[in-house]
């Protein structure tokens, strides 16, 4: 497929090794601006390693990561730092990813202090206040600490912190996996709303196939460091072609009958 528009993220031939083990083998894919791409696979398949390499938190042994046309792997530290604001991540454990000694307001303001140092205090407070409201937390949350919040609320804080810089790509690494099912939907809807409003792209990593299906435009299946199948969400779930994808889908316990529909 050739497209005249440049993809937001272009990953080619990516390999990563841990000792003698291949964590990623020749992984290549693209993500367009505003697109949500799901990444599914089992533990140890390389999902998080891929996220870490794309973010520049880990060097690949081979291959390239181009973001907005800029090569991130060979980039000078200053170039990489400038791009960081456009690449943000939300982790699985919302409490562990927040500094326990920082108030919620400070945690959300921190990226602004780093990337928009010219903002004065009141402008920054306004941005933080607006973001808090946007993710569904009330203004009193600002002065409190992470441990005072439930898992779902902490994840809202993590999303606010990631989204406050208007990133072009948000990586969600099992962002809803530790949440209860009644809260999971709230957080996914929030992510989808933010994406619509801000036009950001998402790499949505999860082992939960049903969640990925609803969130993603396209889905990639990774197994033992290799992408074995990539297809549109509707195609992949209705007519999987790779045997591994078929096996994965067949393993999901069947959802009980839907009572309200």
């Amino acid at each position, binding site marked *: 497929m050739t497209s005249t528009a440049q993809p937001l993220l272009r990953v080619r031939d990516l390999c990563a090794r841990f000792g003698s083990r291949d964590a990623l083998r020749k992984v290549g894919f693209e993500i367009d601006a505003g697109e949500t791409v799901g990444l599914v696979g*089992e*533990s140890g398949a390389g999902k998080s390693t891929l996220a870490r390499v794309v973010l520049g938190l880990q060097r690949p042994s081979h291959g390239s990561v181009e973001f907005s046309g800029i090569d991130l792997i060979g980039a000078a530290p200053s170039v990489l730092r400038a791009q960081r604001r456009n690449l943000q991540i939300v982790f699985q454990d919302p409490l562990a990813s927040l500094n326990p000694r920082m108030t919620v307001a400070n945690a959300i303001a921190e990226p602004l202090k780093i990337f928009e140092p010219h903002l004065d205090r009141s402008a920054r407070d306004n941005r933080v206040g607006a973001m808090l409201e946007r993710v569904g937390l009330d203004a009193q949350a600002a002065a409190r600490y992470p441990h005072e919040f*439930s*898992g*779902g*609320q902490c994840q809202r804080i993590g999303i606010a912190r990631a989204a406050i810089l208007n990133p072009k790509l948000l990586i969600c690494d099992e962002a809803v996996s530790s949440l*209860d*099912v*009644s*809260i*999971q*939907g*709230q957080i*996914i*809807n929030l992510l*989808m709303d933010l994406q619509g409003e801000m036009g950001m792209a998402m790499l949505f990593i999860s*082992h*939960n*196939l*049903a*969640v990925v*299906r*609803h969130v993603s435009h396209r889905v990639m299946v990774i197994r033992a460091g290799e992408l074995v199948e990539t297809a549109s*969400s*509707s195609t992949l*779930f209705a007519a999987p072609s790779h045997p591994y994808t078929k*096996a*994965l*889908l*067949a*393993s*999901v*316990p*069947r*959802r*009980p*009958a*839907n*009572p*309200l529909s």
Partner: protein
Amino acid sequence: MMPALNMEDLRVRYGRPAVEAVDGVSLKIFSAECVGVVGESGSGKTQLFMAAMGLLPGAARVSGRIQFEGNELLAADGGAIRQVRGSKLTMIFQDPMTALTPHLTIGTQLAEVLVTHRGATWKEALSAAGSMLERVRVPEPERRLHQHPHELSGGMRQRVLLAMSLLCEPALLIADEPTTALDVTVQAEIIELLRAVRREFGAAIALISHDLAVIASLADRIYVMYAGRIVEQAAAPELFRHPRHPYTAELLECIPSLTGPRLARLPTILGQPPRPGEKLEACAFAPRCPRAAERCRIERPVLRGPSASQVACHFPLTP
């Protein structure tokens, strides 16, 4: 018929003023029955069964009745409980790594159960352990006996725990989120294995899970817990077809589906579950409930109805 496990008005409290982790739960499990207990984090489902196992921390204050095979467990002394626990009443957990001792071989940990409870010799016990590993479909059981927990995958460790829990032919196996930490393909294998355990060992199973789909694939009967209480109890097919408590209905609606149309927005339940210790004199679900009326905020609904289908709601859904 006498139930294998019979809990009556069980309460588990912590601290002062008391936080009620389990708030007056009555629950029965009959022999060879698979009962699902579903609820979200903090609903009290694990506390309930830890109380039955006598494994709650010292700070917990437990009241009510827990009868196992006709014997009162709460009144029993430590020795009596130790005789039952791990032999006739067993439990497997979500994280099979932390449930095994890292520096002992699989064989030692399995054989110990028979040496302790059955007075077997180590030689007999090791041989029985090997056969049990084979029965729970562990490949190369003889070799596994000499391995340590870290040498096994998560799914294999869960099989080892299952083998350990079955060695003394338990009357009731409590499985607390047995597949939650496992990959989906391994999860399917463990569910299949639990099904085989019922068939081959005839043990009753209490399956605790937050995942209704996992419960649906095994349970005959289901209890739904919310904020330390049972809010609904019914036969599994009935509960899925005609949930009567609004919480059950919404929970079912929240599970994203692998079939049907893709949704632009996922269904959710409004608000948050109550925080531990939040005072709930009336219906705990009322603040999140679309059907809630004035009465729900004043009067606590009690679980009522024929034993085939009970609901604790002033305005239950009608089939």
